[in-house]
């Protein structure tokens, strides 16, 4: 029983991390209709930014998240204005091609810049844990989980209640009408993409506190984020939280009851199931 409780807690904390990884992907996909295959590479870059902040400037990885986010925001804005705006209205295949290329370029640039060595963001408290009855709560994961909730709720409130957020949603719903109301789409696209990348960067910083980083972690993180975004649904940030938690818990339970090799089978099995039964995601509006 204690073990089951611990496994559920593990899954929940893992799910929080998953959710924050998928948040930016879901936003960019939902609004710009770009499936960003470079998403994981941005998570990786965010992890490196945090690593450098911590290693050379001794900035705590959690306190440094806003800096990481700002750096990644600037990168995201520049990439959208300079590159991705070219393909916003192009067929899906072109966007896949260009973001895939971006993923390869970013990954290899990262190896050139940072080498293939493994790094960890390892502040003294990273290995600490809290005891809650029979259950152990790792501090770094708990922090990442809380941050995931904060970011997701913040995202939700931002989209619902701010001018910029409304403009983003309006553009996603009806570009022509949004234009008539004075929205400048190129700038708006760039801001949206930049927010998505900033979120990916923050996720990377959190990821680095619980896992090792190297230039090649991106591809599998993209796949995971993709699955979560589909499972949760694209039109609601809360869906991403649900998708992330669901996946985290399912993977942990699969590891316990069936075996660790089946964790990925389970998560992608669920992805397929959701696509068949509820193609708009668990929290998505039914078509």
């Amino acid at each position, binding site marked *: 029983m*204690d*073990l089951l409780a*611990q*496994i559920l807690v*593990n*899954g929940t*904390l*893992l799910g929080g991390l998953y959710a924050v990884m998928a948040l930016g992907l879901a936003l960019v996909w939902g609004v710009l209709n770009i499936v960003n295959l470079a998403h994981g590479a941005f998570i990786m870059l965010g992890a490196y930014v945090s690593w450098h902040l911590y290693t050379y400037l001794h900035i705590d990885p959690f306190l440094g998240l806003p800096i990481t986010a700002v750096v990644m925001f600037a990168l995201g804005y520049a990439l959208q204005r300079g590159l991705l705006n070219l393909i916003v209205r192009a067929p899906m295949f072109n966007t896949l091609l260009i973001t895939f290329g971006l993923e390869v370029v970013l990954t*290899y640039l990262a*190896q050139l810049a940072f080498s*293939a*060595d*493994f*790094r*960890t963001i*390892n502040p003294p408290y*990273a*290995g*600490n*844990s809290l005891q809650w009855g029979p259950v*152990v709560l*790792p*501090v*770094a*994961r708990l922090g990442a989980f809380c941050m995931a909730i904060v970011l997701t709720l913040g995202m939700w409130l931002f989209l619902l209640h701010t001018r910029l957020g409304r403009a983003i949603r309006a553009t996603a719903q009806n570009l022509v009408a949004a234009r008539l109301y004075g929205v400048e789409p190129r700038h708006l696209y760039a801001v949206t993409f930049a927010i998505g990348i900033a979120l990916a960067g923050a996720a990377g910083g959190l990821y680095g506190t*619980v*896992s*090792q980083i*190297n230039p*090649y*972690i991106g591809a*599998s993180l993209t796949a995971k984020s993709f699955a979560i975004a589909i499972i949760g649904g694209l039109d609601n940030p809360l869906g991403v939280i649900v998708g992330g938690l669901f996946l985290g818990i399912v*993977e*942990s339970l699969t*590891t*316990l009851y069936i*075996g*660790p*090799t089946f*964790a*990925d089978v389970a998560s992608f099995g669920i992805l397929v199931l959701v696509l068949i039964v509820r193609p708009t995601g668990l929290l998505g509006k039914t078509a």
Partner: protein
Amino acid sequence: MSLNRSRLLFSLLAACIAAAPAGAALAQDVVLGASVQLTGPVANTGRYYRDAYQLAIDKINAAGGVKITGQSHKLALKLYDNQSDVNLSVRQYTQLVSQDKVNLLLGPFASNFALADSAVSEKYKVPMVQGGGASDQIFARNFKYVFGTLAPASNYFGSTIDMLKALKTPPKTVALLYADDAFDVSVAEGTRPMLKKAGFDVVMDERYSSNTSDFNSLLSQIKSKNVDVVLVAGHETEILNFVRQAKSLAVAPKMYSFTVGVPSEDFRKALGKDADYAFGMTAWLPTPALKDRWFGDAAQFAKEYKAKFGYDPDYHAASGVADVEALVQAMEDAGSIEPQKVRDALAKVKFDSLYGPIAFAANGQINLPQVVIQVQGDSLAEIYGAKGFVKQPKYPMPAWNAR
């Protein structure tokens, strides 16, 4: 202007033609071909092989090269980056033998690569000496042209299990975790019967997917089953995550031991103090006792390696050097660079290297004992070898909050 340019072109052309005989003279060099992971997820270990091959070749050339029937030949290296992609590496080995016409082959890193690439050397009947693949599968196919300088994967944990039995208070329960690839599956298949024979109670025997980054569920089970000893056969990335997550979940078995990572400097650097108490194994340590024809001894080699590349060599690097030396020795023994003759000489080769005594069994694999090592403080301690304890192990490992 244009006259000048055409004159320049002409003289360049002339220079090329003049250089052609020199090129032909170069063709007498013995070219060793290899495809190694210089980029991609395993680049971190792949670089040991690139650096080791290059250093060994430079060293041998500086000493006059390979002496074949009284004539000196220089060694050259033709190296491709397989980007950590098995399919690409197979194509590159095919290119090396069919297009580039290299004389002999050196291996890639990792068992799944060696498993696939050795099919090329077998098909073209060009010997490949590889120091990066330990899986028994590579040598179970009766191939004639692949030789391996890593100790058999099935016996990686052999010395560790011997040590466990020799402890004053031996452990009772053991967990065996392994990744689902050629090397780690071989390790598990070899370890399982040894554990049974030694009388340990194997309470967990779990196979996980390569590149798993989350070990929390497995660690929670280890804790709840109160496992004494955890043996993990996996990749360095996984093991780093495993140790960090063990700490964050306060899981402290009496000991844990890993097939890879512990001997490498990068592992200890990434984990810092958390690497302390981790057990591992190596078939090689840079001791002056290992004498070598070209480097003097293993300690000397380690010094030169570190000076040149800026990081400490581990057994991968030593194994890579041994590959080059084995080919050179075999060419000299055969008095030829013909692949068939070199192959036959390799099968009989016997010499002392900085990596240890080199001699291949009938299946092409070397047999070297593994030494149990442990991170103790900032250094790597040699704990248990063929002759028993060298240094006392720090066992059991203290709880994380008691360090």
